[in-house]
């Protein structure tokens, strides 16, 4: 399995998608840093009271994380989308699967290799947001590790769906399916938020039900909740960054279990398919 992991890392290092993603990430951090610098400096010059100043800075940091989360989630879906389906279509997989290794090693090796790249990207982008925020404005969310772990679980789930889908679906179909999986979660999250804000319980229930099918967005919202000081939580109600309905902590276990299940399904599907 380690040989497959190593190959995946070498491939990732040489693929343009990774270079492009990191360049986009750098540009993103640059824009965020410049924006944060001017906002923080102006607020300081205008002698805005400290709590309000920190609230604005926290809001901008949350907004940056919201965008960065979308960036990393897209990367987690697209990076491995052709990892197996592309290798199957091109026939590359034949010489590998004919070797004395289990097919599960191929799936798990690909999964692990891509997970390492995505985890590094997540740390680089989300960590970059926090580092820039800290350096420019002195603001750092309190529950940093928990936030990063929740986002890591979110992208791990999306990555697993993309890898597992590639064991049976063509690259394009897999991409559509994995993006749809994330899109459904995204929509469900909004329905739940609006349901909570307006007090419409049925909408909230629909959102929760969708989160059970696709818990990716719920993990982001939980992370986002921990990211925001109480002052900010009250100030941003109704905005895309609000967490009017905070997902239950059990959702984390549910998402973890679903990730393992998706990987297991992928391994089983790949083990049985003709190559």
């Amino acid at each position, binding site marked *: 399995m380690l040989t497959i992991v190593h190959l995946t890392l070498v491939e990732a290092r040489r693929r343009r998608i990774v270079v492009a993603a990191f360049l986009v990430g750098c540009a993103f951090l640059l824009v965020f840093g410049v924006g944060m610098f001017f906002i923080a400096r102006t607020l300081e010059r205008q002698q805005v009271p400290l709590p309000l100043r920190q609230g604005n800075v926290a809001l901008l940091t949350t907004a940056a994380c919201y965008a960065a989360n979308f960036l990393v989630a897209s990367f987690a879906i697209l990076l491995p989308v052709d990892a197996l389906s592309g290798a199957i279509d091109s026939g590359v997989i034949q010489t590998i699967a*004919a*070797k*004395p290794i289990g097919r599960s090693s191929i799936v798990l090796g690909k999964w692990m290799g891509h997970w390492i790249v995505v985890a590094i990207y997540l740390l680089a982008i989300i960590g970059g947001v926090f580092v820039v925020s800290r350096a420019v404005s002195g603001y750092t969310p309190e529950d940093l590790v928990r936030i990063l772990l929740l986002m890591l679980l979110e992208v791990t789930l999306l990555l697993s769906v993309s890898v597992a889908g590639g064991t049976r679906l063509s690259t394009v179909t897999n991409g559509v399916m994995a993006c749809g999986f994330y899109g459904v979660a995204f929509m469900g999250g909004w329905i739940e938020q609006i349901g909570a804000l307006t007090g419409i319980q049925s909408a909230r229930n629909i959102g929760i039900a969708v989160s059970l099918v696709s818990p990716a967005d719920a993990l982001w919202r939980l992370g986002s909740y921990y990211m925001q000081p109480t002052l900010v939580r009250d100030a941003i109600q109704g905005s895309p960054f609000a967490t009017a309905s905070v997902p239950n902590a059990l959702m984390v276990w549910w998402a973890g279990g679903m990730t393992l299940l998706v990987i297991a399904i992928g391994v089983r599907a790949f083990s049985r398919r003709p*190559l």
Partner: protein
Amino acid sequence: MSNADRSQREPAIATHGLRKQFGPTIAVADLSLSVHPGEIFGFLGPNGAGKSTTVKMLLGLVEPTGGTAIVLGAPIGNRAARGRVGFLPEHFRFHDCLTGRELLRFHGRLYGLRGTDLDVRIDALLARVDLFDAADRRLRGYSKGMLQRVGLAQALLNDPAVVFLDEPTSGLDPLGRLLVRDIMAELRERGTTVFLNSHLLGEVEATCDRVAFVKQGRVVHELSLAQASPCMELLLRVSPIDGGLLDGLSRFGSAISRTADGVRLRIASESIVPDLTRWLVSHGVCVFGIEGRHKSLEEWFLEVMGEDQRPG
């Protein structure tokens, strides 16, 4: 009986009633064959006859719908047996972001090879397939022939007991084909069993000990090329050609036909030629020339496949 004796007697590859069905399509119908250890075995058939599917089943890439098969004494898919098998697929595609050396190192590691042993093996194989100079270039810069040769090196990394070569010379120039032919001869000398899938009948004729013709997923004929058939075809450039001559020639052979050059007939053995010549002279026939040749593999192929066979 010792293990060594048993391994010499047991076929390297054996299938019995092997079958593969994809939905309503039958790719391999009922395939039974046996490949002896150390022989170069040609697997011939038109496109769509089930050759590649058979190879994939033998390698554990495709699960059979029915029947049984054994490779190196183990059921197909057995991991230990796969460690002693090499494979060059028909549509060879590799990770083109890797260099030739990196590709071989990767595949060597999949065989469980490591360290100096692997590096030495890689260098030797790169030199053997004439790619030593290009070893550190990325595969995306390789020509089709170079890719095929690095693919061949990949198939030989583990010094296999059985190697499956699916169209190994299709992308090669004449020099490349000669190189592959030499490598196959070396494999035969080392006792490696080669299962060769090829459309290039001239290549098969030059390298194989035995061939099987497969049609619609069944072996319809097997032929030993090492023990060439004594049957040959004669072209008699004689005069005059009349009914009496044609009747008389039927004593010596079959498939007699009159052509623009003379008369063609098939004889069972070369030893008949002196008697035939004497008979012609004694009957006052002027003999301008007698040309004999053995039946080519292509002729065998066309005959075995029959007139109902259309291009695949």
